[in-house]
């Protein structure tokens, strides 16, 4: 196997990890073992891994309420993620954040965000910081077709452009902002085309084609690293699950969902490609799924065995000096 083949297998494994993680999270939620509510990214794995495969550990990332996949793709610890989603003390945020608010600053993950489009001004700040500190880091911001309609996007993109910040804005267009179809809520079909008004190069990609996403992102990341400024990428994709687990999904038809699942599954598409190139054998594929499942079972067991925080820990972590 060539080095590239090994990398491809590694990316594929990450996509499988996201798929299994999200599937398991959905099952655990249905079994009432996860408090609150969760948003799954099944169907959007190629976007997460395609983009993050182009990043270094010290590059920055902001993600969304649908952020599990991005976190995993940036290298997050599965045990700490599951524990956080369970509300346990051993979770990434000691149980204070939950599914929508996971972060790992040691990996440059500046946080998932419960506010739609919340990440754009933050990543713009990371871009300013990179420029002032004169490093060659890059900031990536994932946001959805729904977020694209917030005024925040306008302010952040304009600023990123005038200051030539090292940022890649990644629109994950999964065609529905909660219940609202993109073709109703967006003034344009191709959201990336709005980047022209900020003088930022933009492009749309088949977001379920891992290799295409990676190819386009690599160029944007290189451009940012060289100090040539921001880019906009629109990954056209689809979420296989509802907006949240339990979503009755009256805004779309079953046949529409089935068509994407059956004909445009990003994990299967990459597996088929790797099989055609004789990089992924049936045995290796089975082995990967099995290994991922074992790892996730360990993560769930870790989370289940972990204690809840003590109630009074609710008063910790607000300020650097607790008494304030």
């Amino acid at each position, binding site marked *: 196997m060539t080095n590239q083949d090994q990398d491809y297998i590694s990316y594929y494994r990450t996509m499988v990890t996201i798929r299994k993680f999200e599937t398991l999270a959905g099952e655990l939620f249905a079994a009432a073992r996860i408090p609150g509510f969760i948003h799954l990214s099944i169907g959007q794995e190629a976007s997460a891994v395609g983009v993050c495969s182009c990043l270094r550990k010290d590059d920055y990332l902001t993600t969304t309420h649908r952020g599990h996949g991005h976190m995993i793709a940036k290298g997050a610890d599965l045990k700490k993620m599951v524990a956080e989603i369970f509300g346990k003390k051993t979770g*990434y*945020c000691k149980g*204070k954040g939950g599914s929508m608010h996971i*972060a790992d600053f040691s990996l440059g993950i*500046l946080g998932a965000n419960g506010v739609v489009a919340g990440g754009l001004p933050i990543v713009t*700040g990371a871009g300013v910081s990179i420029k*002032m500190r004169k490093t060659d880091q890059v900031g990536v911001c994932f946001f959805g077709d729904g977020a694209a309609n917030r005024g925040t996007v306008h302010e952040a993109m304009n*600023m990123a452009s005038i200051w030539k910040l090292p940022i890649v804005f990644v629109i994950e267009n999964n065609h529905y902002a909660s219940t609202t179809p993109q073709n109703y809520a967006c003034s344009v079909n191709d959201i990336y085309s709005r980047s022209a008004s900020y003088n930022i190069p933009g492009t749309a990609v088949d977001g379920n084609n891992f290799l295409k996403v990676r190819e386009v992102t690599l160029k944007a990341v290189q451009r940012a690293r060289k100090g040539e400024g921001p880019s906009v990428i629109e990954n056209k994709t689809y979420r296989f699950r509802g907006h949240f687990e339990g979503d009755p999904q009256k805004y779309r038809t079953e046949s529409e969902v089935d068509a994407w699942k059956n004909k445009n599954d990003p994990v299967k598409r990459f597996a088929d490609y790797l099989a055609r190139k004789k990089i992924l054998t049936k045995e290796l594929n089975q082995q990967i799924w099995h290994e991922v499942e074992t790892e996730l079972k360990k993560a769930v067991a870790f989370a289940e065995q972990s204690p809840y925080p003590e109630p009074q820990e609710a008063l910790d972590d607000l300020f650097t000096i607790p*008494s304030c």
Partner: protein
Amino acid sequence: MSDRILSCSAALAEALHEEMSRDETIFILGEDLTAHAGIFGQFKGLPENFPGRIIDTPISETAILGVGLGSALTGMRPFVDLHFSDFVTCCMDELANQTAKIRYMFGGQVNIPMVIWCPDGGGLRAAAQHSQSLEAWFIHTPGLKVVVPSEPADVKGLIKSAIRDDDPVMVFQHKKLFARQGAVPENDFTIPLGRAAIKLEGKDVTLLSYGSGFYLCEEAVKGLGHLNIDAEVVDLRTLKPLDMDTVARSIKKTHRAVIVHEACLTGGFGAELTARIQDELFDYLDAPVKRVAAKDVPIPFSPPLEDYVLPKVSDVVEAARAVTYR
């Protein structure tokens, strides 16, 4: 070392100059900063001395606050100038949902060393959208510290502490007080956040105030003296964290309290402080706590209207008379 007379603006600029010389991660971000060294001239000398570290932004408050936050999360110490505190409404998500919550909701993984500098207050005939005193909104948002200096020395000492603090600090500095002068020590001093000052000692009534309210109290003390009422003036200086020990020390001496602020009455900081006083110091009180504040309307434009709405020295005198039953 001797004190010099400086304006509040000069004290701010000096604090920034000293801090920016000390730590190169500090930078200033906001609208219209370099052309006139800030719209009030408050950053005099800084653009020339720190090129590239005073960044003019587009009119994009959401992104300004977000950029401050994002840079603070990644190794910088931003000083964000909000132009007018009223414009904080344009970046409330970045402030209240992001800046105030990120440290907590991510389990203390990261610090946010950011100052949000908010020129506030009325009296300049600037009308409803350029005259507000909004500090109480942020007292009510866990995760933010709130500082409201009055005299130039407080401005310098508190700004320096705010910049050195590893948490987000909102500093409300009254626009009408920028030119106000006072003695400022020459040495490199700081005033810790959360420490009030008893600025005038008295034994009959405690006047609790901050920002422009301090000057109303200082003026009122003279009138009260003619009435043989010996008032003590406590400048709270920091509202969060609050120096309740100093408040208690004074009230245990005077047994009477008047709270004075320029922000409107209902839900203002005076309401919170009154609640704490009755809860913690009830047995020491000889009279109900009185509040002096602006009337509950937006700040109007026309001078007789604005003057009527804002609290006056005579209001403080009347309130002090009421609680001392004289």
